[in-house]
């Protein structure tokens, strides 16, 4: 959508710095905007403020010591990040995982996904000027964090999964609390729909804003709910299933128009689907070992392997090359938010700055994950 203002080169344009410290960028991301009045002419994202050399750190230490790092890339949904890393090592070393551990992994990962989506929901609406939903979202998220804290011992950066299983077994209290939460969350989703989905102000701020066409999404390698909002049903849990996902019955919600509203709807529906997955994982939770017998010292064989999981924000891929030692030769982490951010420069041309905030919020970016 180009406005008349762009055609007239003589008009006064100015540069605007959005960030590095701006509440709507959700972290230290800087956007250099070339503005014509209220309209964005050009956008340059400046990254790297939170760069911590995670990939380099992986090359300089034995692989078990990198496990805490994985949780610190995407701190809002740390468990899928743990999951991808331990699965990669298990694939390289050929370690078997007990079925109980697989069920625990899936149930906790999905709980974490719900927690992440709830925080996104609150933050997104806070960007749009609605203060109430974040309070409700945090109330529900708190229940999840309490459940996860009870079994993992930690509230955000869990480091819960271990090669060959999980770090601590779950008990009946976990199963019971999670079932109570699922029941509660289903009721709360109704509240969110009344409060947000039907709200006229929210609809006006998101419908038809920031339309990502399926072709554009493919071109930039967008994954996760942002891609599914554009109508492409691509989810690693279905297309390249890992763990116990092939046995579970769940749907991949997709949008039709690819605007901010569709991305919102997809995430809300994903919460529903995640609740279904957790329920099924708890139903099939068998008795038995929670941590299999993994050799204490694993030498990573000199070959390359990769493992993809569906993190809360999209496709996460770990790619590792071993060198016949416990220190890997190279570890590459493909994070979803980086690709999801890259399209924003093209997407926001000719957009109002207020809509840019709406688009940024709907993309669900986590900056430490981009910088890593």
């Amino acid at each position, binding site marked *: 959508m180009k406005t008349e203002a762009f055609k007239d080169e003589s008009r006064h344009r100015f540069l605007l710095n959005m960030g590095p410290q701006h509440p709507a960028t959700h972290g230290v991301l800087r956007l250099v905007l070339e503005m014509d009045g209220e309209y964005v002419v050009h956008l340059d994202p400046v990254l790297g403020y939170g760069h911590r050399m995670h990939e380099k750190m992986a090359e300089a230490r034995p692989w078990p010591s990198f496990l805490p790092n994985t949780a610190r890339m995407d701190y809002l949904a740390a468990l899928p990040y743990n999951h991808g890393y331990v699965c990669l090592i298990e694939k390289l070393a050929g370690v078997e995982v007990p079925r109980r551990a697989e069920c625990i992994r899936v149930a906790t990962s999905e709980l974490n996904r719900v927690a992440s989506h709830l925080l996104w929901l609150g933050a997104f609406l806070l960007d749009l000027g609605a203060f109430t939903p974040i309070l409700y979202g945090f109330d529900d998220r708190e229940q999840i964090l309490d459940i996860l804290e*009870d079994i993992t*011992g930690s509230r955000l950066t869990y480091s819960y999964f271990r090669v060959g299983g999980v770090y601590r077994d779950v008990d009946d209290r976990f199963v019971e609390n999670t079932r109570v939460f699922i029941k509660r969350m289903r009721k709360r989703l109704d509240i969110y729909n009344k409060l947000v989905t039907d709200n006229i102000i929210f609809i006006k701020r998101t419908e038809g804003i920031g339309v990502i066409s399926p072709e554009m999404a493919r071109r930039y390698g967008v994954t996760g709910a942002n891609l599914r909002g554009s109508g492409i049903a691509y989810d690693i849990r279905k297309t390249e299933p890992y763990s116990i996902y092939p046995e579970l019955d769940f749907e991949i919600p997709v949008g039709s128009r690819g605007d901010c509203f569709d991305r919102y709807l997809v995430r809300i529906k994903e919460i529903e689907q995640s609740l279904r997955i957790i329920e099924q994982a708890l139903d099939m939770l068998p008795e038995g070992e929670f941590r299999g017998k993994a050799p204490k010292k694993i030498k990573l064989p000199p070959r390359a392997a990769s493992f993809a999981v569906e993190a809360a924000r999209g496709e996460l891929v770990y790619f590792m090359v071993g060198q016949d030692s416990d220190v890997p030769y190279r570890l590459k982490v493909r994070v979803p938010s980086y690709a999801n951010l890259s399209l924003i420069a093209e997407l926001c041309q000719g957009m109002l700055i207020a809509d840019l905030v709406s688009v940024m919020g709907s993309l669900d970016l986590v900056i430490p994950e981009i910088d890593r």
Partner: protein
Amino acid sequence: MSGYFSDLYHGTKSLLVGLGVTFKEMLKPTVTVHYPRETLTITPNYRGHIELVSDEKTGGSLCITCGMCARACPSACISIHSEKPEGSKKKILTGFELDFTRCSLCGICVESCPTDAIAYSQEYNLAGYSREEFHMDLLGRLGKGGGSLT
């Protein structure tokens, strides 16, 4: 024009429904806790900083100074000092220091310990004025009853 009026009707209705939700929530009991006047009980599984476990028989530490935890630690925050008294075969622990400023609370040290001499602390109220306050002498804490009794 009809779109305008239907927008007006549905918009007003949606706002009123939303307000209804907040009014209903307003009458419900508060979910927040007035910290620090009130505190929540934390789970016994909480992973705080590490603490030495005292030996029930001797009152000392269970640590055999093998150094597994110090080697397993990703951030190198543990330093162990020991000495071998004359005539004794075993090494004796003389100092166990934790640099909590670098600790990432991953718990790999606790898992690596062969004698279960390290446990998690329940302490979460940690604030200080200087970096040095977080260089913890765990053996000293054990003597003062700060150790974990598990």
